[in-house]
């Protein structure tokens, strides 16, 4: 193949945004220069972990303290972050998954070991869970002291979410148990997915090995498992890692404007490698029931196969093939809700312009406080201490009487619960509202109106995106 032909092939095969990157090279350019340019723009990356590692090593301003270098080093020692050769070490039991195994898996012959369904387990005492097989089912929605949670309760019943957490035997006590003790209590159902079954935790045994090259296998099996065993108990299916923190109530707010019959999925949207982009695995992503059905169907009809262990990318490509839409999870002020790093990083870090996180993000990156929505949904690379700290910040610590700047609009089809104040005599309302609050009421109305306007225009935009397959970037 001549060099010219090579160049031509390269140009033809590239989709935006990669095609934009090489646009400035004329048609006569040498193939090597394309490669060079693409490498500079995208480089090669296995998955989010590697992205983070590279980020640590290249991004930091000289004056900025190194971020979580110890985390990086720890991961290396644990053997969960490694080069493929290390996968064969005795710590990682590697299963050679062949095409036959995949076929039998699909037909349901040899899948996941789990405690199975049957008689429900004991009620988990103070935790208010029912253990049924390997799933933890929330009996009631958690309440905070002194709060009015009618809206949250309504959403809890309207938007049922099954959370499955990707973990492994080595991480149950180190990481997964903190997930169990914090945010997963707010899901309608939670299932912990591991390579091996553990009846005490409990976890589902997916029958795979452990390690980065098994990630997509685990994901495929996990999704098949939840559809088969819990398909009727939930409308949305969230995947998260054992170092992801999720504010499930805020996820319900975003999803309440959609129905589980829509073929759509949400997460932190990345640009490259797929036409409509794909969702970052570490920041968590959530599939509608229809999207999950199509994913499973894709494997049955062999439209989708195990292409690469980079699970978030592979999943994104499969879903794109099956006509599932990549949704916009941002709030009404276009602020991101799913975050691939810890809050400190998004709020205070500065991303150097040459860093390719800029090229990865589907939507424009905002630095500083507006990086993140008030109704943030997820953060990644969250260690044990930060898990509890985020739970404390989200569900406990607050400023008394503070009227938030961002007044989130009601999801469609929901009515505002009757105002408590209406039950009190008129004079009581007049007292506080009149003097202390007059100026504020106007403010409140203005922000609410602005919010509604933005929501209306947002609705139109997403509506257009649903109709037209060609994506338009803002």
């Amino acid at each position, binding site marked *: 193949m001549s060099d010219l032909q090579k160049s031509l092939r390269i140009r033809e095969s590239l989709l935006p945004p990669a095609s934009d990157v090489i646009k400035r090279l004329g048609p006569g350019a040498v193939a090597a220069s394309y490669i060079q340019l693409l490498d500079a723009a995208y480089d090669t990356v296995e998955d989010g972990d590697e992205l983070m590692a590279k980020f640590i090593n290249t991004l930091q301003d000289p004056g900025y303290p190194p971020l979580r270098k110890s985390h990086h080093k720890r991961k290396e020692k644990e053997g969960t972050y490694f080069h493929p050769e290390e996968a064969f070490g005795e710590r990682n039991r590697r299963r050679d998954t062949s095409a036959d195994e995949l076929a039998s898996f699909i037909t349901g012959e040899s899948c996941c070991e789990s405690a199975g369904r049957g008689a429900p387990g004991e009620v988990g005492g103070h935790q208010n869970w029912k253990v049924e097989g390997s799933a933890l089912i929330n009996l009631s929605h958690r309440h905070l002291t*002194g709060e009015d949670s009618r809206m*949250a309760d309504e*959403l809890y019943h309207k938007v049922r979410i099954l959370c499955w957490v990707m973990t492994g035997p080595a991480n149950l006590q180190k990481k997964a148990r903190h997930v169990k003790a914090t945010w997963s209590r*707010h899901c309608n159902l939670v299932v912990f997915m591991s390579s091996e079954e553990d009846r005490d935790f409990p976890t589902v045994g997916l029958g795979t090995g452990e390690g980065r090259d098994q990630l997509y296998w685990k994901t495929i099996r996990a999704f098949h498992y939840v559809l088969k065993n819990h398909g009727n108990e939930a409308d949305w299916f969230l995947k998260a890692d054992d170092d992801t923190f999720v504010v499930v109530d805020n996820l319900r707010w975003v999803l309440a404007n959609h129905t589980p019959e829509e073929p759509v999925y949400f997460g932190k949207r990345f640009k490259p490698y797929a036409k409509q982009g794909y969702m970052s695995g570490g920041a968590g992503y959530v599939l509608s029931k229809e999207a999950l059905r199509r994913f499973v169907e894709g494997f049955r009809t062999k439209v989708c196969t195990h292409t690469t262990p980079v699970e978030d990318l592979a999943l994104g490509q499969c879903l794109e093939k099956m006509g599932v839409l990549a949704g916009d999870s941002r709030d009404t002020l276009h602020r991101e809700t799913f975050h691939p790093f810890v809050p400190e990083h998004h709020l205070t870090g500065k991303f150097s312009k040459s860093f390719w996180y800029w090229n990865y993000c589907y939507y424009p990156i905002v630095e500083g*406080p507006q990086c993140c929505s008030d109704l943030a949904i997820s953060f990644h690379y969250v260690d044990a201490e930060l898990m*509890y700290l985020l739970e*404390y910040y989200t569900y406990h610590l607050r400023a*008394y009487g503070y009227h938030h700047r961002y007044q989130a609009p009601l999801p469609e089809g929901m009515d505002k619960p009757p105002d408590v104040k209406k039950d009190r005599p008129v004079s009581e309302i007049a007292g506080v509202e009149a003097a*202390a609050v007059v100026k504020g009421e106007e403010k409140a109305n203005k922000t609410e109106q602005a919010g509604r306007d933005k929501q209306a225009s947002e609705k139109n935009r997403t509506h257009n995106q649903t109709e037209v397959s060609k994506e338009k970037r803002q």
Partner: protein
Amino acid sequence: MRSTTCWAVSTKTCAVQALRLHFLDFNAMPLVLRVPQKMLSESTSFIKGMLMGGLFCLVVSLIGNFGMGGQSNVELHLHHHLKAPSKEELQRMPEAHKLELSQKVRVYCLIMVQPKVLVYWATAKDTWSKHCDQAVFYTSESAKALEAVDLQEQDEWAKLRKALKHAHDNAGDLRWFFMARPTTFAIIENLKYLVLNKDPGQPFYIGHALKSGELEYVEYESGVVLSLEALRRLVGIFEDKDKCPERGHALWKLSEEKQLAVCLKYTGVFAENGEDLRGKGLFNSKSVGSLISNSLALNTQDVIEGCCSDMAVTFSGMSPNQMHVMMFGVYRLRPYGHTFHDSLIFWPPEGSDND
């Protein structure tokens, strides 16, 4: 205090006794027998003295308990814990009173900085201090980058005195004073909630109360709260060079937080520990991260329950970045659909985007 006087009295009594017996018997005895006899008589008189002193002590305490004793014990208890108002308490309040309170509960923040901690100074300016009704930075020497009242004073106690005097003179109609270093992060709304139903015309000196010997004082690191009356009395006693000297006694130097407590004590103002309804301290001299770590290490069933209050007022020892995260966590991050019908509303400050 009673116990020390008691022992003083008893030893004095027994000394008196020993002396008396000594003079009575001594001269009548032969010299040979005088020495052992002297020892014997002195020991018996000592014992007699002790018994009399002890009896005296007992009588005094009994009288004390029946009299004023009960009342002062209760007073001490009240002085020590200061709890936030309950929801019912606030709801029972008539509207006119609530309105009056909402206007009264305004806070003047004194933030004691120095160029050495410029990054913390800048962080405090950019974060929590925006929620004070008035935030004034007092520095030991001026810094070009940031504005402050330059006290031109290196000594910590002298700095404090000058700053408090300045705050008193410039308070306007603000009735509550919060003093902290910029390494502390404060949630002013929760401070307002704590003192909501307390009269600033009464002396209040609140924070994380600690005891050093007999002295009860408020820890500086977790912030000091003073009502207008307490500040007024304090500024008054600043004039007294004996009770509240500027340079302190030469022999040993008390830390400025203790000096403050001593001066206030002379005016009849005592330190109180700020707590929530469950008795959990609201003023923390540690960072929120270390408090969570400690709770996690203790393997408590509920890590957050073992850590910190939902209405915490201060944390200390956090890095500037962690303070920005706390700003997000306190004023913005929240779960949709959970609302609180608080009795008052506090509005976000103008010209700010991180809250």
